[in-house]
């Protein structure tokens, strides 16, 4: 599924990419660890790095558990970081329901590994300044989480001024 999100392509940027395959549980953790190390090298605050690593981990786990395959991009622009997750898979029929803490469609074997507690999307939301999810049943899901690197931008996202 290709993305039609605005990702501020005009600005200079750096992008990290991770290909995620179905049932490859270790790749999810590795993607998040690598993201964390890369962002630490950029000198970002510990709390921001942690939040982005959590978003990448949860988004990657969602692809591993629910989709056929997908890709996660971490796009770094001067004032914000965008985590873009795109997958080919079943899609989400009811996004509002999927956002609910505790709601999960993960199979039993996944839960036995400690995943699939139904907190992934709400967790991503808590760690983001803005979250957009688009999904087509039978086709796939794209998720865009935006994290602002300074408080002024945060205000712009809250009021929607950034996209005017």
């Amino acid at each position, binding site marked *: 599924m290709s993305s039609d999100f605005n990702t501020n392509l005009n600005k200079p940027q750096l992008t990290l990419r991770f290909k995620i395959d179905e049932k490859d549980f270790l790749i999810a*953790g590795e993607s998040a660890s690598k993201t*964390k190390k890369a962002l630490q090298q950029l000198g970002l605050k510990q*709390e921001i790095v942690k939040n982005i690593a*959590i978003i990448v981990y949860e988004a990657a786990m969602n692809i591993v558990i629910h989709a056929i395959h997908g890709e996660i991009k971490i796009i770094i622009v001067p004032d914000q970081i965008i985590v873009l997750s795109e997958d080919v898979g079943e899609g989400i029929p009811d996004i509002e329901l999927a956002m609910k803490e505790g709601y999960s469609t993960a199979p039993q074997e996944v839960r036995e*590994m*400690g995943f699939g*507690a139904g*907190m992934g999307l709400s*967790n991503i939301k808590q760690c983001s300044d803005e979250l957009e999810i688009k999904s087509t049943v039978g086709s796939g899901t794209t998720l865009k989480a935006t994290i602002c690197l300074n408080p002024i931008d945060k205000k712009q996202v809250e009021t929607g001024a950034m996209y005017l």
Partner: protein
Amino acid sequence: MTLREIKDILNAEVLCGEHLLERKAETAFACDLISEMLALANSNTLIVTSLINPHVIHTAEIMDAVGVIFVGGKKLSEDIIKNLDHGNIPVLSTPFLMFNTCGLLFSKGIKGCIRGKRFE
């Protein structure tokens, strides 16, 4: 309290990260669900779990945990430990079960995490 002191209190075995035992922990989070660890635990927390797999260690690393304690004497296989040894997360195994592990830590002054603290 340092991890070395915690190791003694819990009669724990160090599975990896012996060199990191001077790290200090003030809070602990006991849980067997990955997403809950990511959602609810503060940074610099000790993870207490009976969930034994490498994902727990990845999770601990991502959430800036101080270390991981496996309860009930559970251990990861040697292969997995070998891969983790270059990592940044000390992993201990205590023979105590979950309730007693938490009780011992609490009685020695380790506090629980407070939900939402990360966002304050």
